[in-house]
């Protein structure tokens, strides 16, 4: 039994990372087992060749060397078995502890003296403990399977040692020896195949967990780089009119003012799902997918108003800004922190702190009502 889809979906970032880390370590163990098995297969192929081609004295010498090597392999198997046993025991102990804890909380629910608030908290706690038990049992199942592979491999290696030791005293016929070695070869090939299949299926599971993304409050920067340009004054497209006494007539003029290279920038905080491994924002997933056009539109309008220029929302470049928003803000509407205009030549920056939410809580709630994954993740269940 392992975590169900819903349970995995509800994991927080730390929990998911922990789960992925444990899975990765199991996958690493499987890979190292496969490498050892492939090595054994190569060695048996070499033994078959030796048995066919070498003279009796050379064969005996090669066998002694092989026995040394096999004993070393046996030590390695024993070491891996001990390690896996240890981790299994650890997981089982944890499950026992959690089961006791679960019983305690379930018993608390049966009593009459706990408050409504405590009752709700206890129910949450029970859900989290059950999820943890499922996760640990899943790991126990997979670890047990690995342990079984390791024990089989050790038994086969012992059988191989026995054959080589016997052949040192009295050799069977070549046919029998080759037959024994080929049966061993078949065994290792079969074992390698089953472990490869296991690795592939576990890789899919791991891939799925990687695809489960974490929810964060992120600072995004929306900016537009202006390489250079100029404005005509007056801005409304008309002319300044004045009387030139020398010429004796009215003059209609427009003034041209250049402005330097720089960028217009707004910093906005909003919720977004992110990759748990790389921390990168998932721009193709709600809520960010829905929020992005709204933020772009708002920022473009604000910049256009402040700087008296037309900025199409789609031309704004989206980036991640370095300030880390407060975790308490998670679940709130997008928050516009500041807008600024930077002059790249002089290094001067004109900055204005806006500090307003782009929409009210009710509007945001209505906007995100359909985003099931987002709403569920906001509950942030605890993990034991």
């Amino acid at each position, binding site marked *: 039994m392992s975590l169900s889809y819903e349970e995995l979906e509800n994991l927080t970032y730390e929990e998911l990372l922990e789960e992925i880390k444990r899975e990765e370590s199991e996958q690493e163990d499987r890979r190292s087992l496969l490498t050892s098995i492939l090595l054994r297969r190569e060695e048996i192929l070499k033994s078959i060749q030796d048995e066919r081609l070498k003279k009796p004295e050379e064969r005996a010498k090669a066998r002694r060397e092989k026995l040394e090597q096999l004993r070393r392999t046996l030590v390695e198997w024993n070491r891996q078995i001990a390690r896996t046993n240890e981790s299994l025991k650890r997981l089982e102990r944890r499950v026992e502890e959690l089961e006791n804890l679960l019983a305690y909380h379930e018993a608390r629910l049966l009593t009459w003296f706990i408050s409504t608030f405590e009752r709700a908290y206890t129910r949450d706690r029970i859900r989290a403990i059950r999820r943890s038990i499922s996760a640990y049992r899943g790991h126990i199942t997979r670890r047990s399977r690995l342990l079984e592979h390791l024990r089989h491999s050790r038994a086969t290696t012992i059988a191989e040692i026995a054959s080589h030791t016997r052949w040192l005293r009295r050799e069977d016929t070549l046919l029998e020896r080759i037959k024994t070695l080929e049966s061993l070869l078949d065994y290792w090939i079969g074992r390698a195949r089953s472990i490869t299949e296991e690795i592939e299926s576990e890789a899919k599971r791991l891939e799925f967990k990687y695809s489960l993304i974490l929810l964060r409050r992120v600072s995004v*920067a929306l*900016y*537009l*780089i*202006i*390489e*250079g*340009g*100029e*404005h*005509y004054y007056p*801005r409304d497209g008309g002319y300044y009119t004045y009387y030139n006494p020398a010429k004796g007539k009215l003059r209609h003029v427009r003034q*041209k003012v250049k402005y330097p290279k720089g960028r217009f*920038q707004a*910093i906005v905080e909003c919720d977004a799902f*992110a990759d748990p*491994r*790389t*921390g*990168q*924002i998932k*721009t193709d997933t709600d809520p960010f997918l829905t929020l992005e056009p709204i933020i772009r539109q708002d920022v473009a309008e604000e910049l256009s108003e402040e700087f*008296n*220029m*037309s900025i199409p929302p789609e*031309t*704004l*470049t*989206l*980036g*991640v*800004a*370095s*300030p*880390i928003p407060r975790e308490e803000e998670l679940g709130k509407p997008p928050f516009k922190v500041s807008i*600024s205009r*930077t002059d790249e030549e002089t*290094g001067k*920056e004109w900055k204005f702190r806006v500090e307003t939410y782009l929409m009210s809580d009710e509007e945001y709630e209505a906007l995100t009502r359909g985003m099931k994954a987002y709403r569920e993740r906001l509950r942030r269940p605890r993990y034991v």
Partner: protein
Amino acid sequence: MSKHIIQMDFDIYGHPDLSMDELLEFVRIEAKRIKHILGPRAGAAVIKRSINGFHLEFPFTAISEEERDWILEGSIVDSGYKWWIRERNLSTLRITPKTIIKEIGGEPVGVKRIEDTPKVIEVVE
């Protein structure tokens, strides 16, 4: 006091003597240096490839401004980039294509759109 993640931009223009592979090695060295300084607080380092260089990001770090300045002091990142971060007290790394506009009279006369989205190429655990 606000906390920040670490972001760095390495452009080939800032290191004209280096090839892209050599610059990538530089970025890896920088990632390891910061991980060494911050220890477990650093978290994973993400290296992204952009059109003319690399982005280095520590998305799970939370450091103060002083710590950031201290890390930047010994960094091999462009001096201009360092100066800008200190000056603005902010760093940004884009995640979408970049637009550069040249305007005359309030009308955009030249729009340069660099169709390049930085891609994650390496995660230094």
